[in-house]
């Protein structure tokens, strides 16, 4: 049946594209792992503006870093207290 073959071919093509984009993102030092990248690609394909998305990702990273720092500080104080 031609339809599943098409689908598999499309899937393979999409995979390859994602691979290449992942390599490019590595070359550009974007700190993106594959999963994040594919999510972002899905969002962009759904019509999300890339710049906006980039801003959101930066925002989330900043948030994550703050939380990580706070957690680390809390952990060190509890360790010191003991």
């Amino acid at each position, binding site marked *: 049946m031609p339809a599943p073959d098409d689908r598999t071919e499309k899937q393979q*093509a*999409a995979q*390859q*594209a994602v691979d*290449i*984009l*992942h*390599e*490019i*993102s*590595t*070359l*550009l*030092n*974007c*700190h*993106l*792992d594959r*999963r*994040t990248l594919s*999510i*972002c*690609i*899905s*969002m*962009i*394909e*759904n*019509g*999300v*503006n*890339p*710049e*906006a*998305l*980039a*801003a*959101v*990702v*930066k*925002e*989330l*990273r900043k*948030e*994550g870093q703050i*939380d*990580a720092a706070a957690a680390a500080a809390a952990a060190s104080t509890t360790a010191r207290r003991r």
Partner: protein
Amino acid sequence: MAYLAQLVGLVEELVEAVTVIPPTDRKKTLACRESALRGIRHHSYLRTNQFEVDDQLKGLEERFRVIGRDPLADAFSQRLDALEGHRNKYTPDVLRFLLELSDQPAQNTKLGDLDLLHQEPEWEDGPKLTWQEIAEEDGWNDERAIWRNTDYSPSSGDEDEEEVRSATSHDDSVSTTSSVPDGHARTVQSLIAKPSDGESLLEQVRTSQAWRYDGPQKNGDGRAKKTPILSLQLLREVLFMLGGLETTLFDSDCDPVTNYQLTGVSWETYKSLVTSFAECGRKLAPLRAFAARKQQIPLLQVFQDSLQRSLASFDRELAKIQGQFVAIKADVVVSLMGVLDELAPSLTPLYTLANIIRQLQEERNPHAFRYLELLFDTVGTAQLEGNVVTFQHLGRIFFDCFQVYLKPIRLWMEEGKLLPGDRTFFVSETPTKTPLPLIWKNQFNLLKTPDGTLHAPRFLRPAIHRIFTTGKSIVVLKHLKHQSLLRNRRDQDEPRMDFVTVCPAHLDFAPFSELFTAAFQEWIQSKHHTAAATLRELLFNSYGLSQGLDALENIYLMSDGAKSDTFASAIFRHLDSLSSSWKDRFTLTEIAQEAFSPCLDTYRLSAEIDPRSTAHSAIASRSSVRLSLPAVRLLYRLPWPVQIIVPGDAVQGYQTIFTFLLQARRALSTLTHPILAFSSVGSAGSSERPAVYHLLRAKLLWFCNTVLTYLTSLVLAPNTARFRRELGDAPDVDDMIAAHAGFVARVISESCQGAKLQPIREGMLDVFDLAIKVEDAHRAEMTRLAEEDDEISRLSVMSSPVRTPMKSRGRRSLHAVVEIRRREDGDEDDEDGEGWGAAVLARRGAAVVEGKKSHAAVLKEMHTDFERHLRFVAGGLRGVARAGREEATGKWDLLAQMLEAGIREGVSI
């Protein structure tokens, strides 16, 4: 709405992937999600400008090159080029996104990360297997054999050496773990074998065997003393000796060495014990020696194999006994006498076999199958003695060996072929090619030894003849191209010839030789019957044996009088006319074929003349049956299968009978068919015709008829009938040949043609000649009388005064001369004018011919001759009949009686 829901899902995932918020902190997740959504939905960015993106990418690449990171630039451009193949409408957006997120790629990007990218999806392998581990696992260092150089030469002997000693002694096993260090280098050090912990065991073994000294031990004062040994040691030595191995206590001839003595037992007792064991060993020694020799002939090989099996089972017995002492499961008493008793039953068959071997070796040049004969006799003896174990053991061996002996027999009887180079079989083939009719007699022979006995085992002698004929029948059938017929008929299997079938348990009391003979007869019958029957049928049906014999009877034995008469009278006409054309074989052939044409295939018939008899002149040939008629020979060409039954020399016998019959017929025809009729039954002749002539003629006629009657009705007819009957009854070809040969011999001897009755035959031939002479004389007389009458009548017309009265005798003789001269001219007419004149002149000028008797006197003389001959023949026959003891004497007696009737009635004048 769907779009929004999807977006929310994606945002949630994004949040989860990017931030490291634990999923329990739902509030935080929600807050992030909301802010992300807000950021995505409400923004003031413009649409992506794809050309700008391209410019930016190109610029970036240029920047990489400018700062000197060429590999990075190359990788980058390569990836971009690859992406060209997968471009869709969102690709610029994605690239824009990536560019936004890029974090100083010119400085921070490491190409190694790219490689790490590709390595991530690989799963973790298990620990790799190394050769080291395999070597340790398999213990390569332990197995020394691996490292040995293999010797590929044909003789390899040292592989399985039985360690018999290991069964009884507790040898320590030399440790097989070497001290070679793990690794590949083998140094000299590594070759030194270090016994690890067997030292003490070895010492133990050494001390236990310390009693084995090479020579006799010396006493303190130099005298030889006897070394004491234990009974267990003696037992062990005995068992080894019986197993055929070297021992210290017994030497190679199984004689006990006198240096040792059993402790606690007196010297005599010990000696007798050891001697009895030595006896056993000595009896077995030839058996072992024979079993070890190499044999070439299959028959001997199978015998050797049976012996080896018997010896092997005996060795197993020995091993069992040894096992009792070594692997002790129950209490066992070390008793030498007990061992002797245990072994006795197994030893008896072996003793008989050893006996056979000894007998074989004593004979000079025995046949290969001599041992079969010896085995046969021994089995019979064992059965009679009631030795059941020996009987069964040897019986099985006998039948195993006999199977091999049966192979050439089977091949011979089924295919008619002989195994090349087989000297044990009793049929041999002549190397030259024999002509087809002689195949039966000459091509195959039974081999005989120089002293005349058949080259076959004694117990097979009765059956040999049938085996031989079966094979020959198959060969003949093959030549007749009918062997396929035979194969179809052979539907039953041959009966099995092995011990359990031939000597079943319920026939214990039947003698073995009888059982064997019966079984073998049955076996032969299954093969013989079909071959012989097929050949017989073929001979009768396809090749016209009966027709051939009928033809022979017609021709040679003159069984059809009319045809024979036609033939004979044609010949006699030629003879009487003094022409020599009867000597020509083509003429003869023509005459014969014409005469016999209705009753046989004329193309097979031909005639020839024996060249020795052609030297006689025509007159001589005509006047005696002895000179001309034996030269006539008829040949009938039989098909070659029939010639097997009727060989060439038998046809000679037929020929003799034929000649004799022809001679008798000649005489008879001369008497009954005078050539010249009485032209003038005139006045002058009638008174001169003597009564003697008629008497003589009548007697001669009677004699010839008697002889012919005797031959046809008393000799030929009954013998032919008997022969046909015997032929019909004969089961195979040899019997048929014998029947035919017997028939011919009988006929020849009864018809007085045999060498013994030669004088009587000559007497009969004399009588036949006499008959011709009588007729000739009478004819001459008649002609003379007729001429005289003519002359008288002519002279009475002419009335010449000058006429010398000649003596009637002289004139008669002149007439006879004229007559003969006329006949020589081949002139059968009565008178020729000129010849007649010349004859008269000749008569006038003729001198007196001396010493001729008158016609009557001649006839009287002939009469007395006849009487003499008759008496001689009859008396001779009577004498031979009384003196002889053969079958034919009765017939001779009959003939004599018939002839004597003539003598009694004879009136002598």
